[in-house]
């Protein structure tokens, strides 16, 4: 998968973030800003910066970086907000949007706007807080002194031309400007220079101006009142007595452009704005996808499921009919067509949601390489479980937190190569990303073999930040501190991480997905950050089994093999325990019908089938009556309307519309032990409802 595949995702995300940012900015009460809102604005900027950095959108990244810095001050209360500052932020947001659009249509963003906004923001920082921000610094005195090399020729050319006109005449054409605005604009122009003549109508009003200012400066002033594309500024050669509504080209051949070597595009050279606009746009880039709310897709999935069931009922009815009536061939045809279409529809709908983790993982080689390069570290990235399928909504939402975690690991976890060598580790640090199903969850891990977390340092930092901590806290609790808002042990704020905002976002995002984050860390040996996400709507490769009259689903990933147990291989142990010998290994035996109280099941082990399963490193043989087959099932949460059931991870709906329960391998083992420990006593319901699933750690 190519990184370009993620561009669209980024553009969509960034667009959403920008509109969020705008909304929050608009809602913001400048006199009494809500800190949640400031945080939200800041986080949006932070996320855009991260994404832009990943994809190499330097201009967008830099713009966001400066804005983010300012927002950070605002968030901390070091910058007092005023309405005009918010206006500037909004302007910055608009420019970021333009930059985004430019990147989307594979163009370089407008360099002028970029420099202008950077300078404005820097100025705010200087005026309000009295410090220069890091990031691109543009000399305030001469903003256009050094146009970046990336700037296209036409643009540079027009700049030069505009500059060259310093002492000349400019033909300023105002397009579609209302009368009242026009009067204002002409007044403005009079401030800037000497208005030689003016004429025209609302559609095109031309002013000849003798001014020492460059066309860009004039345009910048006027842009406060009207849109940039309403202005056309042309350099007029010599003294133009009459405004020439003719082609701008008249002036071109002799345009006084001493330092304009790129005179090769004369037709564009004289008009500043059209030069930037005339590039062909890739309109097709716009509508390649649409964003639809997950609820709507869920609703469709449910409805299609019902449709399938209704269809099979109809099918049954029709096939019963066939015996008695004649001439129903067309009905038969219709039915088989309906069946095929319904199945296709179901497949298509299901495929909307599910994508493999590879989609997420494949963007990380780039992230890791760039980040490691920036930090001067050597990293080997290993990914496991790429084919684990995950709900699209989860995939979308897991990407950002995962990026933060990876960056964090690289920045704070893995040591510098020299340090690693000195303490006897390989120079190259190892970062592992893995994904797999576990119990009723999806487990995504970010493991590094770096320095690990220093408990004492975390505690000290927490105290410094005024958090309520004590020395008796468990390691897990201490490690969780890094998720506190604003918490960072990094000494420097870098481009990569250290602001303490990342981890705050990580936890928030994961919690909003109904998941949790756990950290295991050993000082000197590395850190393992585990994201546990619920299976909501993930598709599971299942093995359907039958016990008594009941159907259950086993997650296929837990099934190792199945066999018919021979009497000689079964050994009874003290109490009720039975073990089975499978290739020189003794495995405990758990009979499903006992654990789940299934009636009419096969009780003779030698007549049943033993499925060897593995969960959380524990292996056992599960006795079932019958294996039915393999199928993909949609995982449905039991807890939505009911509660967690011991030994059951979730439910699914079978082809006939009935519900089948998905077995939780580890949970069943625990349940079996629990029941055995309860001895011969009848396990009553009260007891069982107090039976709590121990959280897998």
């Amino acid at each position, binding site marked *: 998968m190519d990184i370009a595949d993620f561009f669209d995702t980024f553009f969509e995300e960034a667009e959403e973030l920008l509109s969020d940012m705008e909304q929050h900015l608009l809602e913001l009460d400048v006199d009494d800003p809500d800190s949640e809102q400031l945080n939200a604005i800041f986080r949006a900027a932070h996320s855009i910066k991260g994404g832009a950095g990943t994809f190499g959108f330097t201009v967008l990244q830099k713009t966001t970086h400066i804005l983010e810095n300012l927002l950070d001050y605002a968030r901390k209360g070091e910058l007092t907000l005023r309405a005009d500052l918010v206006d500037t932020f909004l302007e910055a947001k608009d420019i970021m949007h333009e930059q985004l659009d430019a990147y989307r249509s594979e163009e370089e963003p407008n360099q002028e706007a970029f420099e202008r906004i950077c300078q404005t923001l820097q100025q705010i920082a200087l005026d309000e807080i009295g410090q220069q921000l890091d990031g691109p610094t543009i000399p305030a005195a001469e903003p256009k002194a050094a146009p970046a090399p990336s700037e296209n020729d036409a643009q540079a050319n027009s700049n030069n031309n505009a500059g060259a006109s310093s002492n000349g005449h400019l033909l300023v054409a105002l397009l579609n400007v209302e009368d009242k605005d026009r009067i204002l604009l002409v007044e403005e122009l009079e401030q800037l220079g000497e208005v030689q003549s003016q004429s025209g109508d609302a559609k095109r009003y031309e002013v000849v101006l003798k001014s020492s200012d460059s066309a860009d400066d004039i345009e910048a002033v006027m842009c406060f009142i009207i849109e940039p594309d309403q202005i056309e500024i042309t350099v007029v050669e010599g003294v133009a007595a009459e405004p020439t509504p003719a082609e701008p080209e008249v002036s071109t051949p002799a345009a006084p452009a001493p330092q304009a070597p790129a005179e090769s595009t004369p037709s564009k050279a004289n008009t500043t704005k059209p030069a930037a606009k005339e590039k062909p746009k890739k309109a097709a880039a716009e509508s390649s996808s649409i964003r639809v709310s997950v609820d709507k897709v869920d609703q469709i999935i449910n409805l299609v499921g019902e449709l399938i069931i209704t269809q099979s009922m109809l099918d049954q009815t029709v096939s019963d009919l066939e015996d008695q009536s004649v001439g129903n061939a067309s009905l038969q045809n219709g039915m088989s067509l309906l069946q095929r279409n319904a199945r296709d529809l179901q497949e298509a709908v299901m495929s909307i949601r599910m994508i493999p983790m590879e989609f997420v993982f494949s963007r990380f080689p780039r992230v890791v390489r760039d980040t490691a390069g920036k930090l001067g570290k050597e990293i080997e990235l290993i990914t496991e479980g790429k084919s684990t399928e995950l709900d699209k909504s989860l995939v979308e939402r897991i990407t950002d937190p995962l990026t933060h975690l990876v960056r964090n690991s690289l920045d704070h976890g893995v040591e510098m190569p020299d340090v690693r060598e000195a303490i006897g580790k390989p120079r190259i640090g190892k970062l592992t990303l893995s994904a797999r199903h576990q119990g009723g969850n999806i487990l995504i891990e970010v493991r590094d073999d770096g320095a690990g977390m220093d408990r004492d340092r975390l505690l000290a930092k927490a105290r410094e930040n005024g958090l309520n901590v004590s020395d008796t806290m468990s390691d897990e609790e201490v490690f969780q501190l890094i998720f506190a808002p604003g918490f960072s042990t990094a000494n420097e704020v870098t481009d990569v991480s250290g602001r303490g905002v990342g981890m705050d976002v990580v936890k928030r995002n994961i919690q909003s997905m109904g998941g949790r984050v756990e950290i295991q860390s050993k000082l000197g040996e590395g850190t393992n950050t585990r994201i546990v996400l619920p299976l909501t709507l993930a598709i599971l490769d299942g093995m359907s089994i039958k016990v008594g009259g*009941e159907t259950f689903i086993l997650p296929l990933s837990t099934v190792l093999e199945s066999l018919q147990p021979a009497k000689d291989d079964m050994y009874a142990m003290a109490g009720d325990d039975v073990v089975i010998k499978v290739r020189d290994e003794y495995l405990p035996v758990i009979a499903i019908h006992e654990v789940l109280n299934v009636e009419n099941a096969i009780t003779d082990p030698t007549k049943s089938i033993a499925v060897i399963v593995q969960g959380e490193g524990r292996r056992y043989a599960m006795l079932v009556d019958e294996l039915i087959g393999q199928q993909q099932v949609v995982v449905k949460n039991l807890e939505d309307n009911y*509660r967690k059931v011991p030994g059951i991870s979730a439910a699914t709906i079978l082809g006939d519309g009935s519900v089948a329960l998905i077995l939780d391998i580890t949970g069943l083992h625990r349940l079996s032990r629990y029941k055995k420990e309860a001895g011969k006593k009848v396990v009553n319901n009260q007891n069982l409802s107090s039976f709590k699933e121990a959280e897998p750690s």
Partner: protein
Amino acid sequence: MSQANNGAVLAAEAENREFLVFSLGDEEYAIDILKVQEIRGYENVTRIANAPEFIKGVTNLRGVIVPIVDLRIKFHFDKVEYGGQTVVIVVNVADRVVGIVVDGVSDVMTLTPDQIKPAPEFGVTLSSDFLSGLGSLDDRMLVLVDIDKLLTSDEMALVESTSNH
């Protein structure tokens, strides 16, 4: 909300309310019609192991997994049969969808505030905590069940009492 309803009923100042009347054995019960999502037949229920007896299991309601509670078992009725008349009332309580099995649904009744009498303190099987009153209608008596309270109560074991997340 149920408490608010309750209070309002006791204060006899609420407007007329509509109830869905259903039967359990020979007795007539009623629940607030606004809680009712739909009524369907009893079929295709998947048993849940180790659940209390009155939780019959779960069923598929247009893609949603819905637990089914048999109130007859919960209220210790002697005769619990599943036949053509047996219906499931699907109710919406506390953002959940739950189906309750009853012997039959008869009417929708409108009760005026003065037709609703406070429930006396009685009963071990059905604590008066779970009643919003008794409806008297000519010679009939309706037991008005506060379905919200009943289904979210600990003893129904439908809702996780203490969340471990």
